[in-house]
Structure formats: structure tokens, C-alpha cells
């Protein structure tokens, strides 16, 4: 059960989602990826995509307009 952080702060769509997809592809089921995001669109499309993959997702607003999206690969 590895946990990894992915820094997507300051990055615009579609970069955060592309990076998240690439990162998760190298991870095993049960692993957790925490994606740091401050793009308002990416805080919607990254969790949307992850949920549609059947992964568990949690969004934490860690600061004003800054989120950590926690994805558990299924």
C-alpha cells in the first residue's frame, strides 16, 4: 500500500489529469495517490475521471482555492 504525492499546483487543464492518469498507470491496486491541484477545472475533472474508473476519491480543500485529491486505485 504505497502512497505517492503528485504536484500539479500551478498547472492548467488538461495537464493535471494527464499526469494523474500517467502516474496511476504505474501504481498497483490499493495504492494511494494524492494530487495537489489549484486549478478550479482540474479539481472537478480529475475526481470525475477517477470516480468513473471506480476508484475511491476524497477531495480536501487545504487552502483557499487549493485542493488535495486523494485517489485510491482499485
Amino acid at each position, binding site marked *: 500500500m504505497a502512497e505517492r504525492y503528485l504536484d500539479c*499546483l500551478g498547472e492548467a487543464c488538461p495537464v493535471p489529469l494527464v499526469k494523474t492518469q500517467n502516474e496511476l498507470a504505474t501504481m498497483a491496486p490499493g495504492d494511494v495517490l494524492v494530487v495537489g491541484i489549484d486549478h478550479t477545472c482540474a479539481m472537478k475533472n480529475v475526481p470525475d475521471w477517477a470516480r*468513473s474508473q471506480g476508484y475511491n476519491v476524497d477531495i480536501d480543500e487545504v487552502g483557499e482555492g487549493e485542493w488535495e485529491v486523494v485517489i485510491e486505485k482499485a
Partner: protein
Amino acid sequence: MDVKKEPEVKLSYYDTLLKKEWSYVTGAVLISAFAMALNAFSGIWGVSGPLATWGGKFLTLIGVNADSWSIYNGSLAKYQFFGNKPSITDIGLLMGALIACLLAAQWKIRNIKHWKQAAAAAIGGLLMGIGAKMANGCNIGGLFSQLPQFSGAGWVFLLFVFLGATVGGKLLKFFMPPASNKRPNRKRLTEEQRKRNRTIQIAVGAALLVLCAIVAAVVAPKYPSAPAFILIGLGLGYSMQRSRFCFTAAYRDPTLTGETKLTKAVIIAFALCTVAFFGFHISSYGADMSKLDPTKLPGNPINLSLLVGAFIFGIGAVLAGGCASGTFIRMGEGYVQNYISFVFFVTGSTLGGFITGGLKNTFMVAGPKVYLPAVFGGYVPALIIQLAALLGLWVLADWWERRKHAMTH
């Protein structure tokens, strides 16, 4: 860390009213409603048009006599911000998004972290400026306000902007900051400090809203239409920010990430506006088109300049991280990358003015207007065919996302 299925959190009134993001479909419905209100009031919505004028105004400001150039031809001296519809709605988009972001307490300066982002924004902005000039409009004027008014040029724009975005998606990897797994060491605020920041943001948002109302009241006597444009611009900006609506993502994401949720929402917006234009055009031109002057068909002509322009625009919008409307929205939200792309968008629009000036009367701009009701012999067949085509695209988009999801498993 244990990730639980999200518990059913009951949202507070504040979260529901001002913070929680809306669905894409909610965005599609509201954006269509505002765009059609604008249309009923004074013609179609456009975004990229004023940028070349702003470029010329800036040159005048630094002492260049741009107004004597053939592309401006004295129009700069006559330009008045509050007398120019798209100028008002553009700044309205920015202000609406800024206010939405502040009221949600999510505003911050979003800085770039790598020079590659600045390069992408500059190249993308330049390409968008030139492309929008050549194609007679951006995602809004060339597509969202074009396709639903039964203009064949809208469909052609859609095809070529999609091809451009696909190329842009391939180029994007050269501009992506390298992946980093290091958590930046950011200072976290205490609950108390965050509460205070939230209050400040909401207060500033409310103050800006009042300021917009005051501006509308002040300019109203001289510019009677301006208050309506301000209201609609703010409404569009607020709705786009709150629903995270993005026209570029609609044709960028299917090939890049396999996502089509925004594609489907944009198709819904097209369908809603198609029905509205069906009504507008029948009331303007008569159900039998008897009041339609065949030399003054609605919409843009289809020509090589449109094909090239839409293609270039598609590449630019993907690299820059937002089209024209998206750039204004994200400037409101505080994205440094989009301010860079804006400067180059203005530059590109000004350059584009020279390019389109040079193309005048050449084969590049030779081509007819294709007005679908004239092609299909009436408004009802045109409506049915256009809605059927949109439904076909929707089904295709839906199938595409399912297929992509099945492939990754």
C-alpha cells in the same frame, strides 16, 4: 492513508449557494440562456473581436499611429469601451468569474512554476489570435454562436478546431512541466486564519458586485444598452466559473484523456441554442424565408481561411490552457499563465488583422455562406437534421468515453 467512500456530507447553505461547483449541464443551460438573451437583445455573442482593437489602442498609447493603418482605418479614435458590446461582455466574463471565485473563497494568484508554461501560453496565445482572425471568430463567435444559427461554417469550424486540438494535444507534452512527486512545503493556515480569509474574500466579491452595479448606473444615460451587456457578461462569467465550463475541453479531451462529459454538455448547449435560433430566424425571416435577402445570409462564409484559422486556433487553445472566453474566466480566477496568453492573444489578433487584410480578394477567402435552412428547404427540416446530427455526436461521445474506460481496465 485510508480512503473511504465519500460520506454523505450535508452541505451548508453557504456551500450550496456560493461554493459547490455546478454540473456541466447546469452550466450549459445557463450559458445558453444568457447567450440567447444577448442574442434577442442585440445579436450574437462574440469574444475575440475587440482584442485587435485593444492591441491598436495599446500601440496608440505608446505613440504608434496605428489608426492610420488600413486594418484600423480610423476606427480606433471612434472606439468607446461602453459603446462596444463584446468589450463589455469580455470584461464581464472576467469580473463574473472573479466574483464567483471570491464568493466561493477560492481566489488566489495561481503562479506558473516552469518556463515551459510561459512558452506554451505565449505560443498558444499568438496562434489563437491569428486563428480567430482568419476563422472570423473564436470558440464563441466562430462556433457557439455560429453552429446553432444553422451556419455551415460552424460545423466546419468544429471539425477543424477538433483536428487542431488533436495536434495541440500531441505538442502539449513538450510543454508540460516534468512530473514531481515532492510535496511543496506550503504554510498551512489555522482554522481561524482561514475563516478570516474567507470573510475577506466574500466581502471583496460582494463589493465588486456593487461596483459593477454602480458602473452600470453611471454609464446608462450615455450608453443605454451597456447595463444589459454588463449583466449578461457577469452572468456568463459567473456561470462558466461555477460550472467549470470549458469549450476547449469539449473537443480536446476525447482524444487526450478520453473524457467526454464536457463534450456532451457543449452538445446540449448547441441543441438548446439551435431551438432558440429556430424561433429567432423564423420571426426575422418568415417561416418560408420570404423575408431573407439571399445576398445577406446569416453566418460566416466557408473558405480556406476558415479551415486554416480554426485549425490554428485549436492548437493554440490547447497549448494556452483556454480559448478566448476561457482566458477571460481564468484571468478572473488569478491564473498567471492566462495573463501571459492574453497579451499574446492581443498581439496575435493585431498580426492576424494584417494577415486577413492581405488575404482580401484572394482564393483563401473565396467561398459561399452555407445556410442550412436554404440547403434543406425550410426551417423544420433544418432543425430536425441539425438536432439529429447533434444527437448522433452525443451518442458517439458517450460511446467513446465508455470504450476508453473499458480499455483502461
